[in-house]
């Protein structure tokens, strides 16, 4: 049953648009999948105690990089997204390397990375001539609406499959990381860096590897988000609120379990949509209020997150010696 479940869910998700494809639910599904990919990308490092509040920055680099390369150099997002991913990795290493060398961990690491998302937000807002500033930015549309080469698709169903693919790839990467020796090393580093070093782990190298991977994945999510929405603004793809939203969603769903961030995305997006529908524009920003409150409640009472807690209930924790 446990082995079959992912395949059943996967098959159901592939079959879904052939059975039911009303535009609004489809749109919600696509957005949930893209953000799930971003949250999963965050959790790839977040689950090892590397709590980054800078991932909004990587998302922003991915989104703006992809759009700017397309509009100015005519580079297809198929190349633009990888280039943006490389830029995000470079940015991540510039921040993570000194953090690791000078032993900036835990809360202090979170604070340093917080500055990173603020910087990307400021740069995107201030470079008005290039990025349109706070008014936002739009990649140029190709003639006829859809074009695979331009990474633009007309139908929601095509987008659904693109988002599904990236989401599945994100889960696959995290699944692979969680089962590799790197996971042991990072767990060890999270507990005791000196002891991890004494076990032969190159602490800085392992931290940088996972940070680079996580940043690259998040930038890819930013690029895909940009292509889907065809409109980005500093607040929606970069900045502190996006970073916080990632932490919140991942923590609520559960950062230690594979489907956790996805469940977190479903909850946060339905919450934001629900508030928007019921309260209209009068409730703008209420979702952040609810996130903040719930985040505190979850960290205190359910640090494993919803999926994590349910999983522990079902399977029981591992036995002790």
């Amino acid at each position, binding site marked *: 049953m446990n082995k079959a479940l992912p395949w059943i869910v996967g098959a159901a998700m592939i079959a879904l648009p052939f059975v039911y494809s009303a535009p609004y639910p489809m749109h919600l599904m696509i957005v949930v999948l893209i953000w799930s990919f971003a949250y999963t990308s965050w959790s790839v490092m977040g689950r090892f105690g590397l709590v980054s509040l800078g991932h909004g920055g990587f998302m922003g680099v991915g989104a703006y990089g992809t759009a700017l390369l397309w509009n100015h150099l005519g580079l297809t997002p198929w190349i633009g997204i990888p280039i943006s991913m490389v830029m995000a990795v470079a940015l991540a290493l510039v921040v993570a390397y000194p953090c690791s060398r000078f032993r900036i961990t835990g809360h202090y690491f979170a604070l340093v990375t917080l500055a990173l998302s603020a910087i990307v937000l400021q740069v995107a807002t201030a470079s008005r001539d290039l990025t349109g500033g706070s008014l936002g930015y739009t990649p140029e549309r190709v003639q006829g609406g859809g074009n695979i080469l331009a990474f633009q698709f007309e139908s929601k169903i095509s987008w659904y499959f693109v988002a599904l693919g990236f989401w599945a790839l994100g889960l696959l990467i995290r699944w692979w990381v969680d089962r590799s*020796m790197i996971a042991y090393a990072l767990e060890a580093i999270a*507990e005791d860096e000196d002891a991890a070093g004494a*076990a032969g782990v*190159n602490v800085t190298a392992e931290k940088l590897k996972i940070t680079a991977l996580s940043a690259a994945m998040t930038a890819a999510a930013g690029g895909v988000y940009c292509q889907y929405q065809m409109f980005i603004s500093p607040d929606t793809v970069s900045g502190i609120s996006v970073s916080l939203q990632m932490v919140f969603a991942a923590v609520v769903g559960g950062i230690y379990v594979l489907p956790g961030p996805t469940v977190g995305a479903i909850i946060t997006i339905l919450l934001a949509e629900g508030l928007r529908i019921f309260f209209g524009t009068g409730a703008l920003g209420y979702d952040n209020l609810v996130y903040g409150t719930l985040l505190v409640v979850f960290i205190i009472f359910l640090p494993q997150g919803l999926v994590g807690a349910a999983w522990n209930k079902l399977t029981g924790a591992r036995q002790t010696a």
Partner: protein
Amino acid sequence: MLEVSGLIKRFGGFTAVSNVSFQVGQGEILGLIGPNGSGKSTIFNMLSGTLAPTAGTIRFLGHEIGGLPPYRIINQGIGRTFQIPRPFKRLSIFENVALAGYYGQGQPSRTKAYDAAERALSLVGLPIDRNTMIGGLGAAGLKKLELAKALATQPRLLLADESLGGLDEHEMDQAADMLRRIRAELGITIIWVEHIMGVLMRVVDRVMVLDHGEKIAEGLPSEVSADPRVIEVYLGTDATAVQAAAAERQ
């Protein structure tokens, strides 16, 4: 095998280790003793790469290793245990040791790391199943785990830091036997820092005594335990008992 010469470590104005030189031969067990704060752990931290020496050289198998990061020193064949066991609580016993087997051997195949882990765990007498967590291990168990982690890195030189603190007499004898077996069966050279003199004197080939960061004596356990300076700074009224233990040495 290991040649340390003119080793100095200063922390600001304080000299923790002052011009210490010594050698360890292949297959030897060297005991390192001294009062608290005499520089034993600082020397260990320099040998294992946790601290960089202020001056002096550390040559291991002909290569200078002073100032290298810990993971490179381990990959050259020096393993260590910590005075206070530092297990990774979120990993199982097996995973703790497999991690050391993997990274400590320079990331070979996973199978090789697992093999090393199983061998190390059987040697120290801990369960080799994959999922038992460390929660139920007592002081003796944690020391064993610490040793298994160090052994899984396949060291040629083992730095054992006060492995017997917190154990009862029976457990101490077991642990001392363990070190003897590690040398006899695996051919691993050992430097052993230990507070409990009686047990140490029975096992080691040679003893080096530190006081205030300086080497004040070195030699056979019987010589060192009769040295008036050592008795004065360290052994004190226990001297007779320790001398008796040194005489008993097998």
